[in-house]
Each structure stands twice: as structure tokens, then as C-alpha cells.
């Protein structure tokens, strides 16, 4: 599903000097895999995830997604590919405060080619699947952290992506809430979704199938 070859990411420091956040990353993730990326703070985990999620385009190297050479795609084509294939879960949930649960779920659909009626059906279906029908008219501030992240996950998968990326999805949650999310991920993975998550906790990593250790921009284990 994912194949990275000699991928690197750097930020300009001063004149002609660069700060390398990721170096010579080579990585393969099979379809149906559940990978956890671990490593100390500042190792470049989020950076890697944003590159995979095609939010960041300032990298060099090769990135194949399901056989497509992303590094050869134009920004517009990348956006299309991303919208078709990838869902993203954030540590801080990043729900829009002024929109209800229902409307938050509708956002990704509104940016893809769905008809109005289809969208309503998909949102209703998702509310149902996550058992949050009763909360659909509430605003994010009226939900607990766990509930908010539940909505965050629902929003990430509502457009039926093949690949789910999650950057410390349980980082802001109590352990019991975290477990709930992890079990949800397992279930999604069983249904065939490829998952790449960033986590600091061994326990969360244990839900996955394998672990990749990142340190100072290098993959030190699990290539």
C-alpha cells in the first residue's frame, strides 16, 4: 500500500544550512497493516505522518501510494488522491467549534463528489455506527474529550478511505477513553483498513501489528 524510498524532509536553518527532520526514510506498509510509529519528542513522527497524509509537500524522495508515484503528481492530483484514499485523526481532535457534530461529519463529504442525499445517508450511517445519533445536534464544546475524538475518527473515515492516519489519537484522553478508540481502530483494521498511528504508549502500540521506531529523523527499528 505505502512504499517510501530515500525520503527526506528538511527546513532551511540559516544561509545554505538545513535542519533535517527526516533522513533517508525507507518504509513499506502492506495493505491491511496496522503500524505504530514511536519515538521521542521531536523525532519527526508528526512530520512523517503529514507527509503520508499529503498535507506537506516539501520533501524529497519517492512515495508510492497503492502503486501511484505521489512524487510525480501535481498538487491538484495529490489532493484528489488524498481525498480518495486517506483519512486523518488529530491529537487535538480539531473539530470546528461553530459546527454541530452532524455538520462536522459532513465537512469531508462536502469537499468530495457526493450528492446531497448521499451525504445525508452517509452521515446518518456514521452516527449510527458510532452510536452518537443523540449527539448529532450538539456542539463540540458540549462533548467529553473521548466523545470528541470519536467524532474525529468518524469524520476521518466517513469518506471511506483505505488508509487511516492518526497522530497520537489518544494523547489527550483518559486511558479508558483511549482504550475505546484503540478497540475501534482494531475493528476498522479487521474490516480491512490500513492504519498508521503515532503513539507514545507501548500499550497503544500493542494494539497494532508492528512498531516503527523513529529517532532524530532516522528509522532505527522496524524497517
Amino acid at each position, binding site marked *: 500500500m505505502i512504499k517510501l524510498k530515500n525520503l527526506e524532509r528538511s527546513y532551511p536553518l540559516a544561509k545554505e544550512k538545513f535542519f533535517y527532520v527526516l533522513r533517508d526514510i525507507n518504509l513499506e506498509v502492506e495493505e491491511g497493516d496496522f503500524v505504530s510509529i514511536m519515538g521521542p519528542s521531536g523525532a519527526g513522527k*508528526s512530520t512523517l505522518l503529514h507527509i503520508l*497524509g499529503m*498535507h506537506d509537500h516539501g520533501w524529497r524522495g519517492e512515495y508510492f501510494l497503492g502503486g501511484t508515484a505521489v512524487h510525480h503528481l501535481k498538487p491538484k492530483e495529490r*489532493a484528489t488522491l*488524498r481525498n480518495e484514499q486517506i483519512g*486523518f485523526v*488529530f491529537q487535538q481532535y*480539531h473539530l470546528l467549534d461553530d459546527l454541530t457534530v452532524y455538520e462536522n461529519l459532513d465537512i*469531508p463529504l462536502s*469537499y468530495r463528489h457526493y450528492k446531497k442525499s448521499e451525504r445525508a445517508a452517509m452521515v446518518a450511517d456514521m452516527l449510527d455506527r458510532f452510536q452518537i445519533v443523540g449527539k448529532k445536534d450538539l456542539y463540540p464544546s458540549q462533548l467529553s474529550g473521548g466523545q470528541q475524538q470519536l467524532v474525529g475518527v468518524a469524520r476521518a473515515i466517513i469518506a471511506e478511505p483505505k488508509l487511516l492516519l492518526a497522530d497520537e489519537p489518544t494523547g489527550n484522553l483518559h486511558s479508558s477513553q483511549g482504550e475505546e478508540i484503540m478497540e475501534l481502530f482494531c475493528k476498522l483494521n479487521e474490516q480491512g483498513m490500513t492504519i498508521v498511528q503515532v503513539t507514545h504508549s507501548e500499550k497503544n502500540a500493542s494494539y497494532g501489528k508492528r512498531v516503527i521506531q523513529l529517532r532524530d529523523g532516522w528509522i532505527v527499528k522496524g524497517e
Partner: protein
Amino acid sequence: MQTFLQDLRFGFRMLRRTPGFSVLAILCLTLGIGTNAAALSWIEGILIRPYPLVAHQDRMFALNCTTRGAQGFTGLSYPDFLDLEKNSTLFESFIIDKITGTTLSNGDRAERAVGGMVSANYFDALGVRPILGRGFRPEEGTGRNAHPVTVISYMTWKNRYKGDPDIIGKTQYMNGVQHTIIGVAPERFHGTFIGYSFNFWVPTSMQETFDNTGYKLEDRGARWIEGYAFLKPGVTQQQAHAELSAIAKRMENDYPQTDRGREVGLLPLWKTPFNAAGGISTTLGITAAVVFFVLLIACANVSNLLLARSLLRRHEMTMRLALGAGRRRLIRQLFTEGLLLSMIAALGGIAVAYWSRNALVLAFPPSVPGITIDYPGQLDWRVLLLSVAICIGSTMLFALMPAIQSSHIDLSGALKSEGAGVIGGHGRSRLRSALVLVQVSLSFVLLAGTGLLLQSLQRMQNTSPGFFTHNVIVSVVDLFSAGYKLDRAKIFHTQLLDRVRALPGVESAALARIIPFSYNPPSSAPIEIDGYQTAPDEQPNADYVQVSEDYFSTLGIPLVAGREFTRNDDENAPPVTIINETMAAKYWPGKDPIGQRLKVKDNWMQIVGVAKNANYETKLEAPRSFFYVPVRQNFFVGNALLIRTRETPGAITNALSREVHALDPTLAPYAADRLQEQVDGRGYTQRLAVTLLAIFGGMALFLATIGLYAVMSYSVSQGTHELGLRMALGANAGNLLRLVLSHGLRLTTVGILIGAIAAFVLTRLMGNLLYKVSPRDPLAFGLAFVVITLASLAACFLPAWRATRIDPVQALREQ
């Protein structure tokens, strides 16, 4: 006081710390306060206190003489004037000030001069003392042509006489009579006629010399006097008015022949019916409203800027509150800072006003040599006081809301959430949106108004006045000023007309006592009609003009019945007249007026023709009864030449000069002009209104656009996180562009809606400036809609484009 100074010092520091904000805010306010101060100075200087050297202008009123049941001002006769003066008790004085003109030769060139025929008490009643010599003595007002004395203006003294210190006692040749210069008026005294700066004054005794329609001082039927009255201190306008009405009633009984239906009243100076006040007061009223709108928009802008800045100063405010400052204290501090802004702006604004106080004159056509158009603004203490009030008032407007908002920081929450999701968000941003709404709607009103005026100006220019204007050239040989008597003038004009008709390129030529659309009104007279039953109180009246043969063909006024005057309609032939359609319809409804009779001044005339209606003085005038009489049966010394030709005015002037010179080497004609210029000249109030509204409307639009831009860029910068997130969730550039633009356009649309409703109500007040345009004209409203939509698209586009450039990783990281 101590704390005020402290706040002021701190305010200064804050202004210096955010120079961009300060400059923008002060600029907006300077525009707002400056335009208001300028408009106030115009209203003060032109309408409220137009005569700066006159002591008690608050007790000075224009004498308004009217005919019962008829529109418009008619003059007062000299005997009536004397009766008013004699029989009234509530008045300090009455003065006559009748505008007149003459031609002054200045070496080899002829120059026009405007002056006043004034009652002998003129300078004393006004409290104006000549700087050299004296004013008129009481006896100089009476005696037919007995006192050829004149007071000249400061400008005339300086320019024409090079400031000659021994000018008193020297003579000036005017209208064939040697006048002794007895005084020089002060520099700031320009007479008492709004619109013109007078060059000289002569006493009423010289009326016949300066009026080419004859001697009138003993004729109760001749209404020519324009004048003013000063009330005694403590007398109200109502009381004075009542006394005048009573006297007029008595005169009506005593002299029914001449005074039936005559009424005399008082009007405040700004409504003076016989000078430019009436024309310009609506324009200035609208200008005042418009600049007030500009001020509101400017205030909304500054309010917006302050709100944006208050977010940056949240920390400071939180600290102050935490350290125990009361909300009231906080509001006062912010208010002081606002006051500081507007005080600086007020200084700038007053400078702007001072600099533009005489700017109105620029909208008028370049004047004839010798004549000075005069529309002076006046920056006196009243205007300054009002400007300061405006400054404080606008501070209230723009500073108070942000101050109250800022002081309402929730201390416990202040450090927690820093308010995300501003696109379509809450509280503060809603207030800012409301301000933009106000700006957009005010701009809409102004633009719609400008559109209406532009359209009516265009219609006015495109509407025919009922006669040819482009290939008709007018010129005047001022025989009256040259001292010609009637017989000589008659011969001269007859010969000149023959010579002009023989000039190559001249298709036809005619004489007329006055040119259509000139500042000289047509004659007006009571009429009597065979077989027409008058109502008990009615005195039929009609305007008329003396014209020669070929007048109608030269001007292209069609005759709907009968014939034109011929050369044979002279003093030896029976009196004839041509009436217009309105008159025919009024007095001979359903009948053929040809062959019917009309009596004017004991003189029965037979109607030989009916002419199509034309405009006589302005295009705005209502159709009225009008008739023409042959100039050869009613000759006057002064006549104008109307020449139908394809030649240029320059060529005609040269040819005409030669012909005039051949007839009398001492004479020269005025430079010839197309009749079109004459017609355009009467449309200048409209043009002035359009110019002012376009300038201020443009300003308003500019300010509103800036305001919208500021709000949009602010909300985009506040919404960076949300926009980045949306991008991460799959939004492309188009989605974000649409999101921001639609937010901006939603504001604009609501603003336009409110503006359209307001404009519906307000444009009706422009009534008498509009010409053949409905105050709800869809084109003007549509145009305003398009312009504002385009402007707001432009204002929103840059922020929207910036939104698409947001780096989602960065935006999400910053949270």
C-alpha cells in the same frame, strides 16, 4: 484631571507603538471630520451667515413678494416699498438691493461688471463702513437720475484703479453717465447677493440709468425690487410677517389696480428667492447628509481598527483588570485614547476644511471677465465649535463600543480559549461585521444617489429645451451701457441685423430683449383676456419677451398655428402677439385663439400665432403661460442678437466686431457664445450636486471597501487554523476561496439590502434636483449594486486568496 493626563500620555505611547494603525485611523477620521467641517463652512458661509461684515444677520430676512395663487417670486414696486417702510413698526430697516450690470471699458477691452442698485440706507443698515470715502446720503436715494454717485468694491479699487489712494471724487463712466466715486467698500464685503461678488453700488435714484426697461420709481405696477428687512431686536419672524401681510392687505385695498393678489412675506437668508441661495441650498443640504454618512463610515472603520487592536491588547486589559482597575476606569482610558485620535484628526480636518472652504466655485464655469462668482465658506467659531462637537460625537461612536467590549473580558476565561473559528463566528467578530454592514449600506445610499443625479444630469443635457442650442450663437452689443437712446438704438439694431443676415454662413438672425436661460428673467405683466372669467381673487399674469421677426425660425421653435412676426409688425401696425400652447390651453380651451385679443398694460393685442412650449429660464421649470411681442412694437435700448449659423463663435465674433465697428467705431460686441453654453450655465447646481456627491460617494465607497478588507483579512488571519484544518480535511483552493468570498459577500448582500431600503426612503428628499428620473430609478439602484458588489469582491479577494495559501501543517501545529 490627573488621570486624564496620565491616560493621554499612555494613549500617545500606544499610538506611537502601532504607527500603522494610528496613521490609518487618523486618516479615516481626518477625512470624516474634514469633509464635515468643510460642508459646515459652506453652509455657514453661503447660506446661514453669507455676509460676514453684516452685524445682525440673524435679524436679516429676505423680502418675499408673491402673487396669490401663483408660483415664484415677483418683485416689489418702489412705491409699495416706501409704503412698507413707512407703515411698519416692527422693523429696524428695509433695504433695496437689485442686481444690475454694466460694461466698463478698460483701455481697449470691454469688461462686464455686476453691481447693486441699493437704497440710500444700504451701507448704514448693514453696518458696513466704506474704508475710503462714505456710503450714500439719504437724499441720494431719490430724484430721477439725480445722484450719479457710486461706491466701488475693494477688488475694483485694487484691480481697476490700482489701489489709487486719491480715488474719492474721481469719476467712472457707466451707462452713459459720469458717476462720482464716493466710497470704497471693505475688502471682505462683496455685497448681499449670494453667488456674485459685486463690483459697484449705485443709489436707487439711478434706476432708470441702469434698467433698460425704463423709469420705475413712480410706477406702483412695476415690480423690480429685491431687498431685505432687519427686524427690531426681540421681534419674531411670525410677528413681522403678520405686520407685513396686514400692510400688503391694506395696499391691496388702496390700489386694487396694481396690488390685487400681491403678498409680502419674509424668508430666512438661506431661502432668499432672488439669488443663488435657493438653487444651492438643496445641494448643500444633501452634501451635509452625505458628509455625515462619510463620517459614520469613517467612524465604523476606526471602530473596526480599535476592535482588532483590542485583541492584541487583551493581555494588557486582563492585567489591568486583575490589578484592580474598574471597568469604568478602563473604558475611560480607552475613550481618552480614542479622543486623542479624533483630536489629531480634527486638527487635520479643520486644515482640510480651511483649504477647501472656497472650493465650490471650482464647479462653476469659468466666469466672464470682470465677473466674480463667489461661494465662500466661512470657518468661524460656530463652525469650529460644531467641528469639535463632531469630533467628540464621533469618538463616542467609534471608541465606546470597542472600549466596552474590551472591558468585558472574562478574567478566568481570558487565558483559556483564545477564540477559534472566526469565520462566521461570535461576539467581537459579529460586532465588526455589523459595522461593515453599516458601511456597505451607507455607501449604497450614496452611490444610488450619485447614480440618480448623474442620470438626471445626463437626461437634462439630452433633453431639448424646445429650441436649437448648438448652431445658434448669441452676442450682445451693450448699447444701454454705451448711453444710446431709444431712437439711435433702434436704427443701430435694424442696421446691424441687416448686416449680420448678409454675413456669409449666417442662415438667419433675430433680436430678443433677453436670451433664453440668461440670468435676466423675462418680463412679467398682469393680463386681461376677452371673455375669460377670472376667479374673485385671481389676477391673470403671464411672462413675455420682446422678439424680432425670424425669432422662431432662428431658434427652431415650431409654430403650431398662425404666423411668425414680420418686419412689418412695427409701431405703425396694429399690436400683435404670439402665445405659447400652455397659455392657449388655459385661456382659450377648445377654441382657436388666433384672432382673439389679449390686453397688457392698457394695450390690446391680437393673437397671430401659437408657438410650441419651450423652456425659458431652466429646464426644470413647469410649463407656464408665456407670450411674445414684436420688438419693433416694444423697443428697448438693450437687445441680444441670436444668429443661426454653422460658423464657430470665434468667427462670428470677428465678423460681428467688424460690422459693429463700421456702424459705430466706439463700440465692441461681447464675445459670441453658443446658446448651448447659456443653457449649460443654468444647470450648474445639478452639476455641483453631482460633483460633490460623486467625490463624497467615492470617498465613502473607498472607506467602506477598506473596512470590508480589514474585516475580511482579520477574519482570515483569525481563521487560519480552521482554514488549514479544512484543507487537511480535503478542501481545495476553490472551496476555501468560495468560503471566504461567500462570507464577505453575505455581509455585502445584507448591507446592500439595508442600503436599498434606506435609499428608497432617502432619495425622495432629492426631489427637486432630479430631472425626469424617478427617485427609485432601477438603473441607479442597479448600478450602485454592481459597483458595491465589485468593490466588495475586490476587498474580499486578497484575503480569500491568502486563505488558499495557508500551510495546513503549520496552521495545525500552531494550535
